[in-house]
């Protein structure tokens, strides 16, 4: 294997990257530059193309058009050199259900090219690190959703990857497990890992990512550090009201949006919204800081687009 540690240039570069399934452009002209040790969060509604983009990176599918390099190498042609240094946590768990936790890791370690002894050492270390040692001999079926997810993460780390790809790592998990997984990912990031993460959770993206990319219909429609995104694209405060019978007359500093049964009033200072809050006396009203979710919904639409 080539020495990839020497790379300080972008780890991943994409220009006009496109993947088409028949007529559908699942990834549509994406430009990307991912620096070493960056953690990038991909947000986007279902079907936005997040998984497809990840799959292009680890050569699970061939691109239709555009340019893509990973570690300066070309996916598909050089998948062996690339994937030796990539770890993937899939959106759907695909551990071998017949085996127990340690055996699942062992077979994957062999795929990665570890010898049995190194594999055993790393499996013990990873299980310990993710608090799974007690479950080493448990069948996959007997594990909780959170344990299986941690096992998926352990599996992705067996080959000591330089790039870790996590496709919705915490979807459907309880808050305790999510926080545990975030802690683990932050540890990895401190160790220099480059991380690509897709998620539906704004808090997850905000907590972990240096940079957030919002995707919709195969395109990256917005990109930037989480806090900058909010500042750049929204007023600082929002008054969110549901079940409002009629929209009141607003003074010039307040912007209004309507979606479903909810109304959103935005302003850069708090007092006008406080005044409005009192004036409306609506039952389900909340005055808060505008957040990433507001940005996300502003750009991907507040309605269901499925």
């Amino acid at each position: 294997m080539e020495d990839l540690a020497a790379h300080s240039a972008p780890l991943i570069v994409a220009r006009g990257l496109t993947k088409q399934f028949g007529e559908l452009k699942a990834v549509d002209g994406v430009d990307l530059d991912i620096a070493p040790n960056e953690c990038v969060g991909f947000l986007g509604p279902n079907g936005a193309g997040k998984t497809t983009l990840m799959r292009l990176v680890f050569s699970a599918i061939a691109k239709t058009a555009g340019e893509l390099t990973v570690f300066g190498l070309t996916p598909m042609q050089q998948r062996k050199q690339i994937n030796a240094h990539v770890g993937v946590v899939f959106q759907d768990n695909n551990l071998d259900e017949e085996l127990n936790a340690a055996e699942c890791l062992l077979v994957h370690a062999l795929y990665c090219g570890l010898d049995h002894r190194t594999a055993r050492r790393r499996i013990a270390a990873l299980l310990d690190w993710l608090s799974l040692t007690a479950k080493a001999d448990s069948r996959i079926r007997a594990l909780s959703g959170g344990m299986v997810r941690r096992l998926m993460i352990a599996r992705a780390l067996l080959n000591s990857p330089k790039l870790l790809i996590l496709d919705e790592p915490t979807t459907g998990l309880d808050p305790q497990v999510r926080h545990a997984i975030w802690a683990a990912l932050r540890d990895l990031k401190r160790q220099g890992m480059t991380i690509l993460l897709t998620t539906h959770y704004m808090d997850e993206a905000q907590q972990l990512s240096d940079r957030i990319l919002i995707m919709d219909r195969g395109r990256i429609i917005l990109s930037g550090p989480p806090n900058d995104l909010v500042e750049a694209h929204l007023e600082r405060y929002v008054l969110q009201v549901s079940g409002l019978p009629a929209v009141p007359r607003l003074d010039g500093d307040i912007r209004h949006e309507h979606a479903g049964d909810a109304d959103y009033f935005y302003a850069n200072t708090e007092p006008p919204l406080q005044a409005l809050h009192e004036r409306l006396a609506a039952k389900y009203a909340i005055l808060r800081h505008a957040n990433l979710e507001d940005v996300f919904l502003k750009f991907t639409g507040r309605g269901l687009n499925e």
Partner: protein
Amino acid sequence: MTAAEPTVLADLRGDLRLRTNLFWSLYGVWYRHFRVYTKTLLANATPPLLEPLFFFTAVAIGLGNYVQPGGFEGLSYRTFVASGLVISSAMFTAIFETTFGTFVRLVFQKTYDAMLSTHLRVPEIFIGEMLFAATKGAVFSTVVLLVTMAFGARPTAWCVLVPVVGLLTSYLFAAIGLIVTSYVKMINNFSFFTTGVITPLFFFSGTFFPIKGHYVWLDVLSNALPLTHPIEISRALFEAHFTPATLAHVAVLFAYIAVCHTLALRRMTKRVLS
């Protein structure tokens, strides 16, 4: 989750020497199938091993009483049937491994997604899989040989080579299974293949009676069928009688393997990378 231990993270960061050579890749895939299969060995291996033995008792022992006393081709009827069943059992185990088995791994279990996220190449994944099927075939041939011996089949010393023929047979049919699987969209499509192709193959490749010399069209058909050739080789081992025709059967078997192996890899590459 406990606080991260420094040793663990140091280890995570550490450079590993990865064995990315062909041998280790094939071994990794083979080992996975071996581990999963042997985890529930009894449930997995009992039915496919009992089946040829049912055939043996029903046909060779039962029906065999009514077959011409001298048997066929200089073999007692029990020995004649045994020499076919050692090969057809290898075929069946291989074909099920790479039709239903592969399809479930591909569509439901997403086993290949995990393999493909590593450095493994698609050909390595499927050669490993065919090698596992071949291993199983060799073991099945051996077990069927030993059990039919216990029930009165009379092999020769040449029959130590039966597992090798079983291995080649199952590699060939594993490849054929992969070719079929690469086209299949729904799991029940396989029943057309098993009923329409495998069952006739089983009956018209000379397992239970000599095909040759009845009808010309049957001779031609039978010689075109891939199962005929390993069965003829097996029969030569049981007879300890080798002719230029035996050599021709060996050549055809290898030709079949070469063609089907190439096609299987090409088709599966297309299927899994789309």
